[in-house]
């Protein structure tokens, strides 16, 4: 009972937030698979599909972005996306302008934004829309905050979340089959309203 009391007391007093994300391996496969539902992918890519993984240098949670980059590289060694080879580039966060420049320089078709940058959603979203890079994030609030796609862990099942308006502003045209599977938020208002 002493253990129980300690647990209850600790639970009541503690207030440090914690989060849960999908394993990197799952996110990587899902990210590439979702890209194949984008009817504008070839227009947004060159000879290969470049996926940029943005991370915050020195942040404790940047370990998640490192795992994601490694998982994407592993997946890229085995799979093509709509017939195109995939390439993975990691980019440290140095502000929205610098990120935009990196997206342009690499010709990025997709941008993965990890937990460590969850507070930079607005700037990242603006840079991605400028450069037509489809954004992916592991947390619901990041998608609700303006990024396009969430690769979420919903009680031990993967769930896809789409901010439809954001995805369109980032240049993607997602297939209706995919939209039928994903949870969709941010649908544009019907015409005339």
């Amino acid at each position, binding site marked *: 009972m002493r253990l129980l009391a300690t*647990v209850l007391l600790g639970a009541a007093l503690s207030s440090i937030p914690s989060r849960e994300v999908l394993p990197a391996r799952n996110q990587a496969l899902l990210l590439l*698979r979702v890209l194949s539902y984008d009817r504008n992918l070839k227009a947004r890519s060159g000879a290969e599909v470049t996926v940029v993984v943005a991370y915050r240098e020195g942040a404790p949670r940047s370990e998640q972005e490192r795992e994601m980059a490694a998982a994407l590289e592993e997946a890229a060694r085995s799979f093509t996306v709509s*017939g195109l080879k995939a390439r993975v580039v990691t980019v440290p966060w140095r502000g929205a302008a610098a990120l935009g420049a990196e997206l342009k320089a690499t010709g990025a078709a997709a941008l993965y934004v990890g937990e460590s940058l969850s507070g930079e959603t607005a700037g990242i979203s603006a840079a991605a829309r400028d450069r037509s890079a489809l954004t992916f994030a592991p947390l619901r609030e990041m998608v609700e905050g303006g990024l396009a796609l969430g690769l979420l862990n919903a009680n031990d099942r993967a769930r896809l979340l789409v901010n439809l308006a954001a995805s369109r502003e980032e240049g993607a045209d997602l297939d209706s089959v995919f939209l039928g599977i994903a949870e969709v938020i941010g649908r544009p208002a019907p015409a005339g309203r």
Partner: protein
Amino acid sequence: MAQPDKGRGHRTAVLAAAVALLLAGQRAAAVGAEKLVDISTLDLQALLDLPVKSVTLHEERSSEAAASVFALSGEDIRRQGFRTLQEVLRSVPGLFAYRDDLYPLVGVRGLGLPVDYTTRILVLVDGHPLNNALALGQSFFGRDLPVPLASVQRIEVIKGPAGSIYGPTAFLGVVNVITSAGAEADSSVWSEVAGAQGRALPGALGAQLTRSAGDLRFFVAGEGFRTSGNTYTFPELQGASDRPAPAGGRVAGMASSDALTGYGRISWRDLTAVGACNQMTRGTPTAPFSSNLLDPGNRIENRTCYAQVGLEHALANGFTISTRAAYDDSLYRDTFRYDPPPASYGNYHDLGRDQWFSGDVHLTWEPSARTLLVGGATAARHHTLQRSDADGLPTVRDDPVNGVGVGDIARSWNQLNTYALAEQAIGERLRVHAGLTFFVDELFGNRLTPKAALVWTPTRAGVDVIKAIYSEGFRAPTASEAFFEDGTDFLPNPGLKPETVRSLELVAEHRLGGATMLTLSLFQNDYRQLIRYVTVAPDPQDPSDLRERAENVGALRLRGGELAVNASWGDDLRAWGGVSAQQSDQAGLANFPAVTGNLAVSTRALWRPLTLSLRGAFGATRTKFVAGEAPGFGGEIGPFFVMGATALLDVPGVRGLSLELSVANLLGAYAPSPLTIDSAPITELAEPPRTFRLAARWSFR
């Protein structure tokens, strides 16, 4: 030492080694020239299913796993209001629940052996094996699991033997309980009250806390449980000749139980330390072994504790190494009360304890998505102690004529399990799996256990999958079966040989419309040297002196088929279940239902904050245990059908608060399980009556 079937073992070892070398050669030739596959060949819905890890100790999608594997999530458990591992497992297609007066138990594909005490199903918590080598009494399927079920993130179930990687105990199947600790779940507190038969039963109180700071992660969970138990009516007691029986066979207040569970995990980068402990006591309403009826002093106690330190580190080029060192302490203790001496034994005690140190090294090399090589070794040293005695009376060693119990029976021995497994994709549609385990047991001999499987995806990956699986398993005799004696009821049999099983299984999976998976399995299991307790008369001069002794009692072949469905349409509908039909080549096999089935359904379609769920399990007629050994012990028990229902409300406007009303045994079904002769003259034990449970949980971050 037993040397089981050496010639066959060497032939299978050579075959498996040849397959492994072939695969390695293919991989080497393929390096640098690997053909890329388009990601669109993978079905998106299949990718949404999270991977299972229990089959190869490496994450893979269940459709790719070379086994009949079924996984349920923590959310599934929450939506259905499950409270024990047995409640979860009885919803898994192909599994069924039964019990004796001591423990809840689980059978697989019709096979539910008496006095099994979870010695043929390997139970893991985050990969850590709980089963001891003693098996005087253990379950893990009730409130004796050393982690609160509310803290479980996922449960993976492998049906069929998995000896090729886990060694002994993975005989009928494997249950891997994965805690929330690895996923940084919510912190939460929960409480529960219950009522049945018009009486309030105390319930449970628990909490879990998860925090992280930098690379340091911390998870702790605890739960306390208490019930005053149900009242049972045993009409057969009215015919008891050995003890005074209560009026009408009504036994009240004898099924109380207490349990306390604590689980803690702390991790820093690749390093993890875990400590877990459960202490459970419970009464025994049937007063087994002819102990005094209606005596609350008849109680059993289990304590399962372990501490573990593990390191998992990803090296370069697809190598991962994990190591683990652990200490386990498993205790069983009982007291059965009789009339005071000299009329009888007074307070009679049994004790069994297994303390073991173990360590393992596990290597995974995945040079590409097409190749997986796994190898490792686990070593353990067991120290077991068994004892039976009565307060104030000499043991048989002290007084061969009038003694009771035999005093301490101590055994210490070593085990080593080494394993290797290879998976290789051949072309875009076929994966070949081959595995081999070499198990060394200082007391019970050595064994080679192979496995081979093909996984073929004739259409787009994840839509249709065909698996052909050959696997073997074995179960070493437990220390209680081999060495336990008490001078009154049980005799030792150190010459016991391991039980073995060879399994052939064909599995076809088809995904319907993305969200529904249909699985058809056909299986044939050949069991050899099965161990059962047999009644013998050890003294030819005294044929009335009957004792129980564990013996290898021959062979058994089971054949059958299983059809399962697993569906998920977002939050709107979640359903899983199946039907398993099987036949045995032994007529009258005890506790063997020819058909079992189950279904669990939940929906949030009516109103998003409200989850309504319904579950049911049924089974065909079964033969009672030890037919013919005692008056009334023959015959059959009829089919059973047990239902439960839950309403779960995520309270609108109060983030993280949920309320639950659950009804177990909704229809108040009798649904008995057959009892062993230990409970004579009682031959069957009813399902606990309709029980209402009201629970609240508050989750926060």
